[in-house]
């Protein structure tokens, strides 16, 4: 087990280098430089050149890359020029990450609860009307871009039945942690629920076909022939086997937190990292964008790592390889 994990962590190193190069390239693609926001038409060209030289922007790209990586390792992600002028990027992200995390975790848990219960319901009633409805529902939510459903949820639960606040995170820096935690729950729940309701498709389809496959296996027939009740076979054998591949997907829900937050946070006016990304892009705050991309890249790699570890842990056959 430890050897599997070690080998998997070693694979991450070239991946991390590749991710950092990709992000560096994207950062180079963006027009302007970090002084973009602090300049005005009257700035002296010599001053600009001096500032660029001091920041190392006149070096060849590979030296800039090494310098950037060095800064990142020391925790220096630069300074924001537009979103929160003068703040360090680490400070902005540190402030914005909690709302996104709380929303993302609630959304991930709810997604699993909803999709697993839908898959169980569908598989137990194969080809009956409830199965058909669930399949159509999940096909629809996967085909239609989900942000349009967010408007529906917004109108329903903020305006027609006003039980949730319309915008904000409920977090106030002057309050204590527990007060913030509970007031944030009220704000985070609706976007989280909305994300969950409309993203059940992949787990649902996978788990449903797994359950149907397992139901047709010989061991189920043997157990039934011995006289075991179908609900016991379901609980003790079918579920355990069908859940194995689902468990490994848990890692990837970490990867999706930031990407999924972009639309939910924009529609619901919930200022977390996703909204920050949109804000930074619209304002061309490139240090913030680069930092967010880096965060997302690291999250993606960690998600993959976690998934592989979980699947090696629950399924010994994976470890042998």
């Amino acid at each position: 087990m430890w050897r599997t994990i070690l080998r998997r962590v070693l694979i991450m190193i070239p991946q991390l280098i590749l991710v950092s190069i990709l992000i560096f390239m994207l950062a180079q693609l963006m027009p302007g430089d970090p002084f973009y926001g602090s300049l005005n038409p009257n700035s002296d060209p010599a001053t600009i050149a001096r500032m660029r030289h001091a920041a190392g922007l006149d070096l060849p790209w590979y030296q800039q890359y090494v310098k950037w990586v060095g800064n990142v390792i020391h925790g220096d992600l630069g300074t924001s020029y537009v979103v929160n002028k003068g703040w360090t990027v680490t400070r902005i992200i540190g402030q914005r990450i909690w709302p996104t995390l709380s929303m993302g975790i609630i959304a991930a848990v709810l997604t699993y609860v909803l999709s697993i219960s839908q898959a169980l319901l569908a598989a137990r009633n194969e080809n009956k009307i409830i199965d058909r409805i669930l399949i159509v529902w999940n096909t629809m939510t996967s085909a239609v871009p989900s942000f349009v459903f967010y408007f529906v949820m917004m109108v329903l639960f903020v305006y027609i039945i006003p039980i949730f606040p319309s915008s904000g995170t409920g977090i106030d820096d002057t309050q204590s942690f527990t007060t913030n935690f509970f007031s944030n729950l009220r704000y985070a729940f609706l976007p989280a629920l909305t994300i969950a309701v409309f993203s059940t498709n992949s787990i649902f389809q996978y788990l449903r076909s797994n359950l149907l496959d397992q139901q047709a296996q010989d061991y189920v027939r043997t157990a039934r022939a011995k006289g075991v009740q179908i609900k016991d076979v379901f609980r003790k054998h079918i579920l355990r086997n069908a859940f194995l591949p689902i468990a490994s997907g848990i890692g990837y829900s970490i990867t999706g937190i930031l990407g999924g937050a972009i639309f939910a946070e924009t529609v619901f006016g919930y200022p977390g990292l996703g909204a920050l990304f949109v804000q930074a892009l619209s304002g061309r705050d490139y240090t913030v964008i680069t930092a967010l991309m880096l965060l997302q890249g690291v999250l993606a790699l960690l998600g993959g790592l976690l998934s592989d570890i979980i699947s090696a842990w629950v399924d010994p056959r994976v470890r042998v390889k």
Partner: protein
Amino acid sequence: MDMEIKKQRFGSKFIKNFWRELEKDNLALLATILLIVLFLFIIIGQIFVPTDIGTMSNILSANLPPLTNGHILGTTNSGADFVLTLIASASNSLIIGFGVAILITIISVTFGMIIGYFGGWIDWIAMRLIDFWLVMPLLMILAIIFSTAKGLSIWSLILILAVLSWPPNVRLIRTLTLSEVNRDYVQAAKISGTPWYKILFTGIFPNISSTVISDFALTLAGSIGIETSLTYLGFGLKHGTSSLGTMLTVLSGSSASSVYTQWWLWIPVTLVLIILTFGIVVLGQVARRAIDQRQSVS
């Protein structure tokens, strides 16, 4: 002569099977009818859409509510008729979707079949790159590229989308090809000296075509989804080119409460988007069953 007769029979058989599948499936029938109506609307509507609909600005009649001055759904914030803007936007979104899906299908069928057929180090490198690309946040990367470009034309948008989002399709086609390569008919063709491109396009391709069709539909709906999502956030198309996404942009930011107070701004757009994407996916599944009768449900 012989080949022509065969082709004709295949075509008529496909249409017959397609009809039979539609008769069995009420939902698919509904989706088809709605899609046909929508397509007719879009095509016939083109006649009435003025060419300058994206760039015109008529402040006097901007933001009118429905049923005023003969505008059935009111006007947009630049004063254009809402229904006409919707038609223009839907056709733009459809063009983008079809363009991206056609390009991706061509790339994935050729590239996927070749790396699946030959295997070896090309396959190994391609798969490592694809696996790496699949964990990257495509939407965020696209948003960054679009925002640096400061407004793209429809065609460059299609090109960027296609170039960056083919990996999952290639992987699918490669997997399908791998399962065909070791079949007897491929081995027999190889031994009898059939060139590889003939084996690929006349031997393997017909056998994977049902999945190619449904994958095309999924990609089409997915591309419309990505395009509308990004243009909704405000990244992508240049000013004056509207799409279903740009029509929803007015709802973001400070005017979020207009979701409730001005329902006509988003409900028609959303309905068109749902009919388009959902209908296309359902039709793709029907076409898949019509081609490959083994998958037909009784």
